[in-house]
């Protein structure tokens, strides 16, 4: 009889980097390599983004370092038609959905090529065409929204489910309770995907909740709770695939706790040495999800060291070149400020717009924003 309070942590890749064929999920070799390249791209890109932030070239960034396997595997295990509600630490998910790097950087910079028109913070990427909802900064608010999207799909008879990402900290929010309760009551086809990276800014999990773990919280809302090794790509893929199939077949929601670790800072404004030890970080670097995935792929005969080296080099070149190009793009024109407040430009917004243009482009061309 398994201990319901301590669900076992599902893993696939063993310490030697091998997977037991009996538990290894079915993923094509091409896909495995595609996911690997994406994980590496995200890792290198974020190292660069943090540097660029320090150089003042971007305003802010919150990296997902250490959580690449976790969030990419979850997105990989659902269909493109399914909803994704992100928290903010999921760059690989939108790249997997098909955003080119240039589009990603345009959003990070908020320039005039940005499809979000320079309105949202970095990490808050989204694309409704891809059913990828831009993160909402107040923690936890996306959770009940994801349930609503899933309920709508069910009501319309669409074969669509929702995947919602959130952190361990977000499990304290009202949104978490509301979302899980609703999904339980309405049997909504939704996957609650908690990236338990052990910290919410500086607050460790044990100060966030007195529960043994997060997965067991599912039971109280009438749904299955699964714990999975978040640094084990095939294990996360497998757990999410299982929850997705269940949701699609009318089995309702699942809470998945992916146990992982944020190896980097909370954001570009954070210094983790204030609240945790280097030793602790080192221990988790031993479980680097990219290295573990590399071992797994090597053991499958899919990856050689020289390929990894050349891949790193070419990804770095692509990243640097694409960012340099994106940096050259003009910022959005101040005239665009007034668009999208409503479905049309109201007369009073039109008036404000004219006034601003008058300041900016009127006699002497004075620009209020250059002060």
């Amino acid at each position: 009889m398994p201990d319901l309070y301590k669900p076992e942590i599902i893993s696939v890749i063993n310490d030697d980097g091998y997977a037991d064929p009996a538990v290894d999920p079915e993923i094509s070799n091409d896909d495995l390599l595609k996911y690997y390249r994406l994980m590496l791209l995200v890792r290198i890109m974020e190292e660069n983004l943090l540097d660029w932030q320090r150089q003042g070239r971007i305003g802010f960034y919150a990296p997902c370092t250490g959580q690449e396997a976790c969030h990419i595997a979850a997105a990989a295990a659902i269909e493109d038609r399914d909803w994704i509600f992100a928290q903010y630490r999921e760059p690989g998910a939108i790249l997997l959905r098909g955003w080119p790097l240039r589009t990603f950087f345009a959003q990070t910079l908020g320039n005039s090529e940005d499809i979000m028109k320079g309105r949202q913070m970095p990490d808050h990427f989204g694309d409704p065409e891809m059913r990828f909802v831009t993160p909402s900064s107040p923690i936890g608010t996306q959770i009940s929204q994801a349930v609503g999207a899933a309920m709508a799909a069910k009501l319309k008879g669409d074969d669509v489910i929702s995947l919602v990402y959130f952190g361990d900290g977000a499990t304290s929010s009202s949104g978490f309770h509301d979302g899980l309760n609703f999904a339980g009551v309405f049997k909504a086809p939704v996957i609650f995907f908690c990236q338990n990276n052990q910290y919410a800014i500086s607050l460790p999990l044990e100060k966030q909740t007195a529960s043994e773990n997060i997965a067991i919280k599912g039971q109280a809302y009438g749904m299955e709770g699964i714990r999975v090794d978040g640094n084990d790509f095939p294990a996360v893929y497998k757990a999410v695939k299982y929850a997705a199939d269940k949701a699609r077949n009318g089995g309702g929601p699942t809470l998945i706790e992916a146990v992982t670790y944020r190896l980097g800072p909370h954001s570009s404004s954070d210094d983790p040495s204030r609240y945790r030890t280097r030793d602790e970080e080192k221990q988790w670097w031993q479980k680097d999800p990219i290295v573990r995935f590399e071992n797994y792929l090597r053991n499958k005969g899919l990856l050689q060291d020289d390929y990894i080296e050349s891949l790193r080099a070419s990804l770095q070149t692509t990243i640097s070149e694409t960012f340099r190009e994106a940096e050259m793009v003009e910022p959005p024109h101040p005239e665009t400020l007034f668009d999208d407040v409503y479905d049309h430009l109201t007369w009073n917004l039109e008036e404000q717009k004219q006034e601003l243009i008058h300041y900016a482009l009127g006699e002497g061309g004075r620009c209020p924003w250059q002060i």
Partner: protein
Amino acid sequence: MPIITYREALRHAMDEEMARDGKVILLGEEVAQYQGAYKVSQGLWEKYGSKRVIDTPITEEGFTGAAIGAAMAGLRPIVEWMTFNFSLQAIDQVINNAAKYRYMSGGQIKTPIVFRGPNGPAEYLASQHSQALQSFYAHCPGLVVLAPATPYDAKGLLKSAIRDDNPVVFLEGEMMYAWKGEVPEEEYLVPIGKADIKRPGKDVSLIVHSKPLKAAQDAAAELAKAGIDAEIVDLRSLRPLDEKAIYDSVKKTGRCVVIDESWPVASIGSWVAWLVSKNCFDYLDAPVELVSSEDVPMPYNHRLELAVQPSAPKIIEAVKKVMYLG
């Protein structure tokens, strides 16, 4: 007199009041071990311990409600919201509860709490982190709403707020935390409900509060070069509002520009502008002007976010209007 930052001034106020009164506690996200998201509470956890400086789980509604209960039971909590934007998750506790208990209970229950944190736009934070929400709170009877813009006022007003028996909403600003100013070493309080003339002048009144004080000061310096002598009235207290100070100034200058970084509709700025129009009608030489945020959510792009906010050139433009200059 020592020169300290606005951040330090707030910290000293909390420190002094916590030392003075063992019932004062501080709670919120990251306030203890991390020393506050903006380092306002630095050192307090070491000094007062985990019983009085409390890191909470991420639920504004939860810790705000807990503070209300603790206040009913005799403590004097200071609630730190990481930003006022997230106070919206707790606004039911504040407006439906903290602001109402005294009234609903026929005066029997008091909830002496200070709700504090950064309000208003900073930089690179986009629409969900940049809102100036003073009118949401100032709208509501039962709350005291304070908005200091200098280290001196921040310290003196926070001490008054902590000692006040009403729930007090205390609006700071991320950009203001690093601002410096003179703060005396000896103890002092700034009274609630008193505006302050930050620059005396005779030609036009600039009525302002919070961060736009800087823009008003820049504008006044620029206007002085053109021979225009602006008076700056810093409201400091939004509810109660020092109407007398406003009217005295406007009656002297005959011209009024109100500056408020919130949206223009139903704001402190538009309320003050109406009060002046009504109560100083016979003294006014021109209609009152309002310089507010543009009526849009805050964009992320830096050029755009600067264009949205009140700025010295926008204030100068408004002054030119009330003075009928080109």
